[in-house]
Every structure is written in C-alpha cells, then in structure tokens.
C-alpha cells in the first residue's frame, strides 16, 4: 500500500528513496504520531520531501493516493475510500476468497467480510498488520487496525466539515515550476552561477604535477577543476513579440550572471533564426551578423541557449521565403539545424507554460528540431536546461 505511495512520489519526480521510506515505517512503528490522517500527512511529508520547492507536488500526490480520506474535525477519525480498502482487501483476503465473494455478490459483502476479518485480527492481538508489510502498526491506530476510528465507505449523513490540509496547496508558490519572475529571479541567478562554475572541465595542475613528480620520482599527473569562468555561451533571444517581457527577464538574468561566464554573447532574432542575426536592437537592419560567420567565429564548445515562444506559422520554420519580415533563401529549419550541427550543447527556453505546448504546431516542430531539448522558463526548466548543457556529449 505505502509502496504505491512511494512509487507515485517517484513518478512525480520527488526524489524519495527506499531510505526515506524505511524511515517513515520506522517512525510509524515508534508511534511518533497518533491515528489522525493529518498527522500521517505531516510525518510522511517530513520524511519524503527535502526541498520546499517540491512540497506542492507532494501535496498533489498525497491527495491523489489518499483520495477520499478526510479528517473530520469533531472526531478526528478518518474515512477510508473504497478503492483503498479494495487494496487492503486484496491483502487480507486470499485471491480465492475474493473471487468467491465477488461471484456471490456485491462489494458490500466483501467489505463486510473484510471488516469482520480485521476485527478478528484485532481480537487476537496479532501484530500482523499487512498494510505496510512490516508487521508493525498502522498509521491509524497504535494497536493495529482500528475499526472504530475508521469508517468504511462514504457516509453522507455524517456531520462535521471535512478539511484536507494537503488540498489547501499552501506551498504552491514555492514550486520550482512556476514561471520565472522577480520573486524567484534571485534563486534562478544562483543556479545559473552554479552552472557557470560546475560546467567547468578539469585542467592540468602544473605546479602540483611538477612537485608530485619530483617527490615520487615518476610522472604524477595532477588534475584540478578548471577555475571559474569556463563556460562559454551564445544566447539567442527572440524579440518583437508578445513574449518580450519574459525575454527581457531572461536577458537580465543572464546579464546579471555575466561575470561568471568566460564568454557570453547575446544575439537577437525574430521568431526563428535565419541567415542573419543582430546584436543591437536599434541597428537591427543595418548591423547584422551573418549566421554563417557566427558558426565560423565561435568554436564548437560554445553552448547555445535560445529563448523564444516558438509560436509562429509553420511556414516560418520549414519554407524558404516563409519569414514574415524578409525574403529568406533557405528555411529557418535549415539554419537552425546548421547551428545545432556545429554546437552539440544547445537548449531552447520557452516562456509559454509547458502545458500549452501541445496546442502549438510550431512549438512541436521546434521541439523536434531541438531533439526535445526545450524547457519551460521556470526555475525547474532552467535547472533542466542547465543540466542538459553540462551533460557530457
């Protein structure tokens, strides 16, 4: 039962390991909490989540896995949903028994049998609580299953207002998936800086190698991480559209982190990169950099970061002459692929919420050209993008 919880957490990308899981079981066995569901929620949260950015996601998973369990304020007892009990039933009744009952009649009968079985267990003082597979206690009672404390099924006539702490989603604004804004820009910057440092490769430590070799009388090569400022980035920003505020934000973000990079160059494009780009928006028609020159000028260990909404007519991507602003001899796709061929490390940051990407044909096309390396402009997306860029290729 609880393993299912763990699985769901991991599906939701909450990095809970078996270690945390065992800690939770140990805490349950040690009676850290009483039988209220809320307490179980707090305890499991404290065990599984180690990053406030994931608390909201945890709340959602908890709500999903333990759907229907509600704490009644006045009594503090819990309601267990049918589907959950169905699982418990599977554990407590043999398959044959289940089949028999099902053949015989209704779900109610299964429930009745289950209830009886659990009562018996309690009577016999068996520690054999199979819910959590440890022979320990259940979260809803220090002495194993507690039929008084738990009601089976939903009982509409019940008094009392139901509250679910996890449904309040109080940690929503700490979630790393909310879009970048002034609120979290500091955190974003910190992560970017870290990327700029961690992205460094090892270099030869000459002094240590010489003295090591002298001491040991054999060639002793010492490597050390290259000092700061090793990462080289070309940033391509899509300007002149509805996403300008986000692009601006991104520009500011990278500017603020500028000193951390060995090289950081800004280039602008509109909708899709073609045969020319520009570095100064005021002179975008007079001072243009041919994309071909760029490919020759910057070595292939530069990392490319595109920022744009990738929202346009598909022609602008895959047809010569498709650009809305000028006549392009070759399609945007051709140019983008040329760039990606030269620079293996590349990502696309998209300010449009990831959930809506499916609706835009051009977004899907861009994403495909980028070989899926498109990330939302959120803290989490930024993290993912930076991780992708530091991946050895």
């Amino acid at each position, binding site marked *: 039962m609880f393993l299912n919880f763990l699985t769901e957490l991991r599906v939701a990308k909450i990095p809970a390991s078996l270690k945390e899981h065992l*800690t939770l079981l140990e805490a349950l066995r040690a009676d*850290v*909490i009483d039988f209220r569901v809320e307490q179980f929620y707090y*305890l499991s949260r*404290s*065990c599984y989540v*180690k990053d*406030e950015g994931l*608390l909201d996601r945890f709340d959602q998973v908890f709500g999903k896995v333990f759907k229907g369990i509600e704490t009644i304020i006045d009594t503090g007892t819990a309601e267990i949903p049918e589907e959950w009990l169905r699982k418990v039933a599977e554990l407590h009744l043999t398959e044959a028994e289940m089949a028999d009952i099902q053949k015989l009649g209704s779900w109610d009968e299964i429930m009745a049998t289950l209830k009886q079985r659990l009562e018996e267990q309690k009577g016999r003082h068996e520690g054999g609580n199979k819910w959590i597979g440890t022979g320990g206690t259940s979260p809803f009672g220090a002495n194993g299953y507690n039929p008084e404390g738990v009601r089976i099924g939903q009982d509409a006539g019940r008094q009392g207002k139901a509250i679910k702490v996890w449904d309040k989603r109080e940690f929503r604004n700490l979630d790393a998936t909310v879009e970048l804004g002034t609120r979290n820009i500091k955190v974003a910057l910190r992560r970017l800086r870290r990327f700029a440092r961690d992205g460094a490769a090892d270099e030869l430590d000459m002094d240590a190698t010489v003295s090591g070799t002298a001491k040991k009388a054999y060639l002793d090569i010492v490597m050390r991480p290259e000092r700061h400022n090793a990462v080289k980035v070309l940033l391509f920003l899509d300007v002149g559209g509805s996403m300008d505020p986000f692009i601006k934000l991104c520009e500011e973000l990278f500017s603020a982190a500028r000193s951390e990079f060995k090289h950081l160059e800004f280039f602008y494009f509109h909708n899709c990169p073609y045969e020319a780009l520009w570095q100064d928006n005021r002179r975008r028609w007079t001072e243009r950099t041919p994309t071909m020159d760029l490919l020759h000028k910057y070595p292939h260990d530069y990392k490319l970061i595109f920022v744009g909404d990738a929202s346009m007519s598909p022609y602008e991507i895959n047809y010569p002459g498709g650009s809305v602003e000028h006549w392009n001899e070759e399609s945007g796709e051709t140019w983008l692929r040329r760039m990606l061929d030269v620079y293996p490390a590349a990502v696309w940051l998209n300010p449009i919420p990831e959930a809506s990407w499916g609706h835009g044909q051009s977004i899907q096309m861009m994403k495909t050209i980028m070989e899926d390396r498109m990330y939302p402009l959120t803290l989490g997306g930024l993290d993912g993008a930076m991780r992708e860029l530091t991946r050895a290729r």
Partner: protein
Amino acid sequence: MRFEGTAGYVATDDLKVAVNAAATLRRPLLIKGEPGTGKTVLAGEIARSFGAPLIEWNVKSTTKAQQGLYEYDAVSRLRDGQLGDARVRDISNYIRRGKMWEAFTSPALPVLLIDEIDKADIEFPNDLLTELDRMEFDVYETGERVIAAQRPIVIITSNNEKDLPDAFLRRCFFHYIKFPDRSTMEAIVAVHFPDITGQLVREALNIFYDIREVPGMKKKPSTSELLDWLKLLMHEDLPLDVLKSRDTKTLIPPLHGALLKNEQDVMLFEKLAFMSRRGGGQG
C-alpha cells in the same frame, strides 16, 4: 518525551510532528524558512521543553567540519616545546574539543544546534555524514575513539544559500517553516506580549501583512521585525487612530525603522507615499 511547543514558542502541528519524529528516531531535523521565522530559537525551545542542555554550533563561511569534532593546536604545542613545558609530552593537552564531541559526551541527553549550515563550504555537510550517522569518530592524534553514549537530538538550520547534498538530505527529517498566517502570528505575538491590546495587534497586523504584499521589496519584514515594531509601538503609546487612519500620510507606517531595515525599501515607500499624495491631490 514529546514536543508540544512551549510557553515562549508557538509550534504548528506539522512542526511538532517533525520535531517528535527527529527526537524519537534521533535523526537530524533540517529546518528551513524565511529569515526571522524562528528557526534558530526552535532548538533552544526544544531543549527547554525536554529539560535538555543546548549545545550551539554557529556555522560561518570559514567553518570546517573537523572543527566540530576537534582541533589539534599544533602551534601551542610547538611553543610549549620550545619553552620546555612538561605538558608538551601529552598530546591530548593540545586537542580542543568541538561541539559535536561535546554533544556526544554530554552526561545528559543534549540538543545540538548546527545553525546556518549553508554558510559553510559546499563540502561541509558531506564531511559530517558518517559522524551524524554513526555518532562516533576517531581522534587520530591520540588514537582515541569518541562514541556518543546516547545519540543527541540534532537540529540543523539553513537559509538556502547553498543547496545541500542529496546524501546528507536523505539522512534528515525536513521541515519548512511556512510564513505564519494571521492566527499563528497572533499567537506568537501573544506569547511575547501577553499584555498587548487586541486592537493594537489587529491594526498592526493589517499594516504588517499589507507591507509584505508590496511588490519589489528587498527585504520583507518578518516575525522578528514585527515583534520589534510592536515593542516600539507599545512603548510610544501612540494613539490607535494613527495606525488606523490609512490615508496618504501614513502610507509609511509610524516608527517604520523597525519594520523596514533596508534603505531602498524605505525609499520605495517614500516614493509610493509621494505618488499616492500626488494622485490624491489631482483626483
């Protein structure tokens, strides 16, 4: 042994569960939260409630993990050696015990606070993994092994300046102190100022939460600023309507020095006040 908050500290239910889990299983509890939300004082309150001694280790950017175990004062020994001091023969005279050692050998079960762990080098938490796990370590100079008679209750705070390594996190319980909502804040205020009038608290909290909502603030006032401000307000005995009248002149709250600690924030408020006065004049 259960932590239920203390007369001087308001603990929410989720915090209590986290503290009790950590205290029962004797695993470290990692506490995060906005500045001034009571992370540091928590350890002291836990100690008080358990009647346990508090051992505080305040981490700085230069702090090394080894310092929590012990330090070997080689310089003193060298000096004593030159002076012919007899102490020099016994190397243990030059071993300085750290906070962890102190906690491991404390006769009564202690609460060990490792405050602001994120200030130290990124390797710091990793360097303490085994010691926190096994609660023992070796003193190489003397060949001694220090083993905790009983595992101390360990509270660790972080202000999120650096991410902590996964291996370290896996060993901890975690609690994020959510910024207190209004009713929790009222309880906190009551704990600090039992005699304060309900009306003053109401008006002050209105202003306080409004200020926290102003976009673009460099440092939002937190619990500690609120408490300082209330103390001043009580001391000055201002007529209540100064707080209540929310016209343009009082957009900057009275005695704001206690609430707005950042020069730029004060300027921001002056600008806002100016703009709203001008807007009001024209309107």
